[in-house]
């Protein structure tokens, strides 16, 4: 029965071939048009931009993720629930287009880990350079490229990680069988692959020296690689926007019967708040990068003061997304913390409603803080104080979350398995990230701290505490659900006890050298600062973090194949994906609809039920509206 799948049938292989062909067609097309117009045939900027664009389209066409949309345009019918080719099993399933949100979630997750490791290797390279003052082995130009790529590739990896968690978990947690738009979901994942290839391709196109922020006028003049950097980020933006659209539609329309908004798990709240940011604000980084692209291609003058442009405009557009982007990474992680704490404390989550609303509080305030990145940029000075206050306001909803976590832990029956360790680690690190934040948000201190390693330390503390530790906690926690096998607890604990202290050394070291005058983003520093030893410590800590992640990857890979088979509710969770479904979960999740009859976090309360199979209730009659909005959807006559 089981047919062998040829290598060239695997989606990823087809996609890569399509990408190469697309790039070649793009290069040829530009050259041909220029030849017809009588211009010099080779124009590197235009050729590689169109090449990158066509390469991405080629990848998406060849992998077949847009097949059904093309059929719709041709007026052909497709099944209501798209199915992947059933011949693809095991590895082939994950390397090809699948419309199952769980497969897509795991695709996101594995890609995320790979991309994060690549970005981490970049960090190790330039951290090694920084062990001593002077130039050791990295020339400043290469240092800039590696440092920039560490930043932007890591951001891509984090967005993929966010996609992994929200895609895998949201439908399961709300009792849905898939996302609202499965085809769009597959599209949102796969567009990341050519995008990351474009980002890494910059290495071979002269690099880029702008830092991940890509500020003009430097980015308007930097080497050719900048174009693929702009293009790659642009396509990752596609993924964010369409993924977010899908999450919001799923949460609004596909919740199980009885799951009112205030009975949704906190993770769903945070995923929705995250999606609201990603859906709207992402457009502005896309726009700002496109404008730089046009400036380079057509000589436009948006950010060129000599021609009436203004580089500050770029910073406004850029930070309108890129500050909220931090909340995109962090909110999802904070959702994981709130989700897992009650399970391991065996107690209800403290202040459920406040925690639920605090996510939207952070998301909404986050739209009005962007200019705190620009206090020293030459922006209008009167904007400083309002943005300082709005920035400090973020501490209020964030504080709500902290109080809830502490109160949930209070007098709980804690147990310390690996996911719980990572949750507790995340809370402590995020506290460091949070407390090192206000000095940057206050104008007076920020004028001193701007562009120092203090900012680097602050940012890495928020990202480790707000994203990486919760992401790892989520992987360990849902690992038995995803694979049907248990990870190795000892290796998990070793991972944690290596990573946490190493992280503290790294981040506190960064904060310290920053206060002592170490500038960020530079390959060299003055020996007179006497920060060599701290730099050495930071670098060693970086290697320890890499080692601990390596242990984790080995653990995941080995356990997914050889781990102990587990089928039961490992963590005694009350969530429906643990109580009502086997591990691993079959396609289309819940065989019969579920209904929600209680509160999500009533741990330790006797007789409390959250979700159950809805077979007892009468199913909806034909033609009867499920939701009020469906009634409005009826034809006009």
């Amino acid at each position, binding site marked *: 029965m089981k047919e062998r799948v040829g290598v060239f049938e695997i989606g990823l292989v087809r996609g890569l071939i399509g990408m190469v062909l697309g790039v070649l067609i793009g290069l040829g097309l530009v050259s041909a048009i220029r030849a017809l117009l009588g211009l010099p045939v080779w124009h590197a900027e235009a050729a590689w931009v169109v090449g990158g664009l066509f390469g991405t389209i080629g990848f998406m066409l060849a992998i077949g993720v847009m097949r059904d949309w093309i059929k*719709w*345009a041709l*007026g052909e019918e497709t099944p*209501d629930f798209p199915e992947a080719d059933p011949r693809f099993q095991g590895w082939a399933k994950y390397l090809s287009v699948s419309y199952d949100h769980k497969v897509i979630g795991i695709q996101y997750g594995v890609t995320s880990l790979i991309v994060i490791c690549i970005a981490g290797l970049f960090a190790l390279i330039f951290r090694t350079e920084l062990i001593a003052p002077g130039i050791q082995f990295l020339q400043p130009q290469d240092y800039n490229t590696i440092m920039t790529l560490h930043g932007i590739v890591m951001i891509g990896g984090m967005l993929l990680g966010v996609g992994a968690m929200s895609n895998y978990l949201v439908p399961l947690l709300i009792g849905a069988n898939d996302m*609202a*738009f499965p085809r*769009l979901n597959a599209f949102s994942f796969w567009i990341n692959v050519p995008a990351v290839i474009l980002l890494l391709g910059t290495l071979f196109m002269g690099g880029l020296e702008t830092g991940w922020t890509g500020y003009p006028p430097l980015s308007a003049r930097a080497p050719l690689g900048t174009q693929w950097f702009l293009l790659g980020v642009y396509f990752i933006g596609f993924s964010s*926007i369409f993924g*977010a*659209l*899908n999450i*919001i*539609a799923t949460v*609004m*329309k*596909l919740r199980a019967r009885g799951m009112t908004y205030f009975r949704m798990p906190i993770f769903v709240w945070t995923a929705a708040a995250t999606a609201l940011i990603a*859906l*709207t*604000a*992402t*457009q*502005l980084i*896309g*726009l*700002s990068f496109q*404008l730089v692209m*046009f*400036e380079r291609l*057509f*000589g*436009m*003058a*948006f950010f060129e003061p000599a*021609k*009436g*442009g*203004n580089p500050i*405009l770029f910073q*406004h*557009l850029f930070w*309108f997304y890129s500050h909220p982007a931090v909340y995109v990474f962090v909110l999802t992680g904070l959702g994981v913390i709130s989700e897992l704490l009650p399970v391991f404390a065996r107690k209800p989550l403290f202040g459920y409603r406040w925690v639920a609303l605090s996510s939207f509080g952070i998301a909404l305030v986050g739209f009005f803080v962007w200019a705190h990145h620009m206090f020293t940029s030459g922006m209008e000075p009167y904007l400083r104080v309002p943005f300082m206050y709005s920035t400090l306001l973020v501490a209020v909803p964030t504080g709500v979350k902290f109080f809830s976590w502490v109160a949930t832990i209070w007098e709980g029956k804690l147990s310390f398995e690996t996911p719980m360790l990572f949750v507790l680690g995340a809370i402590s690190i995020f506290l460091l990230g949070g407390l090192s934040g206000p000095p940057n948000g206050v104008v007076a201190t920020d004028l001193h701290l701007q562009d120092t390693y203090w900012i680097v330390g602050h940012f890495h503390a928020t990202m480790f505490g707000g994203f990486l530790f919760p992401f790892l906690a989520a992987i360990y926690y849902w690992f038995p659900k995803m694979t049907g096998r248990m990870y190795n607890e000892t290796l998990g604990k070793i991972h944690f006890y290596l990573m946490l202290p190493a992280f503290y050394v790294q981040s506190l070291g960064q904060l310290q050298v920053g206060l002592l005058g170490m500038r960020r983003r530079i390959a060299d520093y003055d020996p007179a600062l006497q920060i060599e030893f701290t730099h050495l410590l930071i670098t060693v800590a970086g290697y320890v973090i890499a080692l601990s992640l390596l242990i984790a990857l080995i653990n995941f890979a080995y356990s997914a194949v050889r781990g102990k088979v587990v089928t039961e509710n490992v963590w005694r969770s009350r969530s429906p994906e643990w109580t009502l479904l086997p591990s691993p979960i079959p396609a289309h999740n819940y065989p019969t609809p579920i209904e929600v009859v209680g509160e999500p976090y009533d741990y330790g309360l006797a007789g409390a039920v959250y979700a159950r199979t809805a077979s007892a209730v009468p199913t909806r009659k*034909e*033609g009867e*509206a*499920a*939701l009020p*909005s*469906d009634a*409005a*959807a*009826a*034809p*006009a*006559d």
Partner: protein
Amino acid sequence: MSTQAGVSSSYREKLAINRLGLWLFILSDSFVFGGLLVSRFYLLGTQSRPHLDQLVGFVVTVLLLTSSFFMNRAEIAIAHGDRKAFLRNTAITLVLGVAFLIGVVGVEWQIAPFGPADGAAASIFYTLTGFHAFHVLTGVLFLAVVLRNGLRGHYSPERHWAVEAAAVYWHFVDVVWIFFYPALYLIGTPLP
């Protein structure tokens, strides 16, 4: 069309989800145009605008706004099962959309006394009209698909989501122009 009841129940649920998805997309897309408008006023202020041909601007605006009327007629017609009127009005919308594109890209871009590299006002003009024209172009392609499938008898009063989506998208692109037209042609005095 299978059994009537089976179609309406699941189709209506799907329709509600599709509608939400389309409006979320429009919300998202409006941030691009918002960002472009912000850029225009940030760089040029309210006292100046690019030097453009008023007649061309007026004519293309009339073309686009009129097209929305016919788009609406087309949607109403298919909802009432009047296939002929649906096809006629879709075709008129399509033609008006193409005429708008010719007016902007084929005429205004060619007769403008500056190229895209000639300063901030020129960059703003080409980028704003370019982004908008790209959206009109996608709308025209969408309408062409709807027209083709409509000619093959694909839509019915109960099932015409594609027509509805094309119409909503078309109106959205129209509304964007209602903001762009004054921003480019009316506010401030033309730069030399």
